[in-house]
């Protein structure tokens, strides 16, 4: 366990720092932006699609489980990413006049 810490020291640092950043970064969001922000964040975690792509791309041609599940995973991931960003953009359209 302990030695795992020092072998993964840098990983741990990255995680800790990201946590701080995640909190700092949205610290002062006005409540009217809560929904778009949620939706934007939702699109960002669609980055999981990268994993799906790797699974898919590594699957041997005979390994149908991997192929099919991977295929599904990529579709779902894309839905998350594309849908997420588009919906967010549409929401923010609503607020654009605010900016002026």
């Amino acid at each position, binding site marked *: 366990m302990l030695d*795992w810490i020092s072998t993964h020291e840098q990983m741990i640092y*990255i995680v800790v720092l*990201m946590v701080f*950043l*995640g*909190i700092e*970064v*949205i*610290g002062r*969001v006005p*409540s*009217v*932006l*809560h*929904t*778009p*922000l*949620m939706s*934007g*964040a*939702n*699109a*960002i*975690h*669609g980055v*999981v699609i*990268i*994993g*799906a*792509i*790797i*699974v*898919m791309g590594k699957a041997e*041609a005979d390994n149908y489980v*991997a*192929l099919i599940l*991977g*295929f*599904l*995973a*990529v*579709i*779902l*991931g*894309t*839905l*998350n*990413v*594309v*849908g*997420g*960003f*588009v*919906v*967010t953009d549409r*929401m*923010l359209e*609503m*607020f*654009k006049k605010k900016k002026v």
Partner: protein
Amino acid sequence: MELDILTICYLVASITFILGLKMLSNPAKARSGNLIAAAGMTIAIFATIFLYKDDNGKALHNYGWIFAALIIGGIVGTLAAKKVKMTAMPEMVSIFNGMGGACAALISIVEFNHLYKSNFLVKENSLYISDIYTALNSASHFVTTATLLIIFAGLIIGSISFAGSMIAWGKLNGKVKDKSFKGQHVFNIVLLIAILLIAAYLIINLSTANYFLFYVILFGALLYGIFFVLPIGGADMPVVISLLNSFTGVAAACGGFLYNNKAMLTGGILVGAAGTLLTILMCKAMNRSLTNVLIGSFGAKATSNAVSSKDQGHYKEISLSDTAMLMSYAKKVMIVPGYGLAVAQAQHACHELEKILEDKGVEVKYAIHPVAGRMPGHMNVLLAEADVSYDKLEEMEQANEEFSTTDVVLILGANDVVNPAAKTDPASPIYGMPILDVELAKNCIVNKRSMKPGYAGIENDLFFRPKTSMLFGDAKKVLQDLIIEIKNV
């Protein structure tokens, strides 16, 4: 070389995620922030497809499949997101979030099979496992344990997020009703503990004998997701979705560990942290605690209150024609939209009323409470759909300054956000929530269908105040009739 470019692409992606999220929390930059993050994501995806190499330097294959999937997902996603009605967007977000969770879970399943195969069956396949070994750039068989740990985490969190989001979605569009059986919370906790125990057991000694338990876990997690969300009141879904959203973030981060992929790791953790904070902020905005939302005691209290509450004193009603009179001869009218307006889908009628009054030379404005409706910005979105111009919408602060100079306030299906108890009654569940001071105006007309309470499930003194008069009926219907009346004035 290619790998280095890939690294750089991932770094760029991570940065765009941070910047994007930062800008998303600033009204002026939100939209470009979203686009920046999207750009970063695109880079990361295509960089992965074309530059990724496993630790034996093998590039990815199955490009056909990958692009097919990308295109399908892309088209469906775009269409769904474009077609959805403004007011149904939280549902959409919930679905997309579920997709992400499912994606994470699927990855875990596949990786588990790989790991299992390569560890216990065909050793010739061990090339692959060595792969994970190095991927986790660590020594000792400890790796498998760590890998398993990550895989299980991804599976459990992902599944919960998926199942939960689906239920949340069902609730938002009314397909699923609030259900809860006695001692459900106990049941949930037990279920969760059981899942974790099995997982721990498998992680320590996985064998050909017990590997099927993996699927038990999968099933258990899905079940938990369902029971976790079922009892929570439909109005709290925005909060729940935001919470599940951060879950999915963590699930994605697990993938990041699994493939030692920084883009996934940073993106996932970022959303995990930000999502959690956002969830808390959302609760604050309605001033409630997260636990309060999850244990749903609020909803419970609501009903009880509603029942127990006796009609304290008497309220006066006002006829359509009188209302028409009052408004046509007013100098300034403020409209306070609330959840009811959304339920009645009366935004267009409302906009029409506004125009007619303006033609009569009446100044019309809208007073928007930050948590009016069932999601932050709900009213902005709703009215924007009926293209009410934005300069007519006043944030709570400005609005409260203007009420004193207002002749008539028309409250359309709003209740809690104009409940004076929030200021006067420390015992009230909404005590402390800033509200719209409609009482400053000369007259105050409230449209709702009955004397029933709103979301908070509490009586509203306002209705019994001298200045206030009730105009019962469905918002849409009432507005349409009102418009006719005004025309005839």
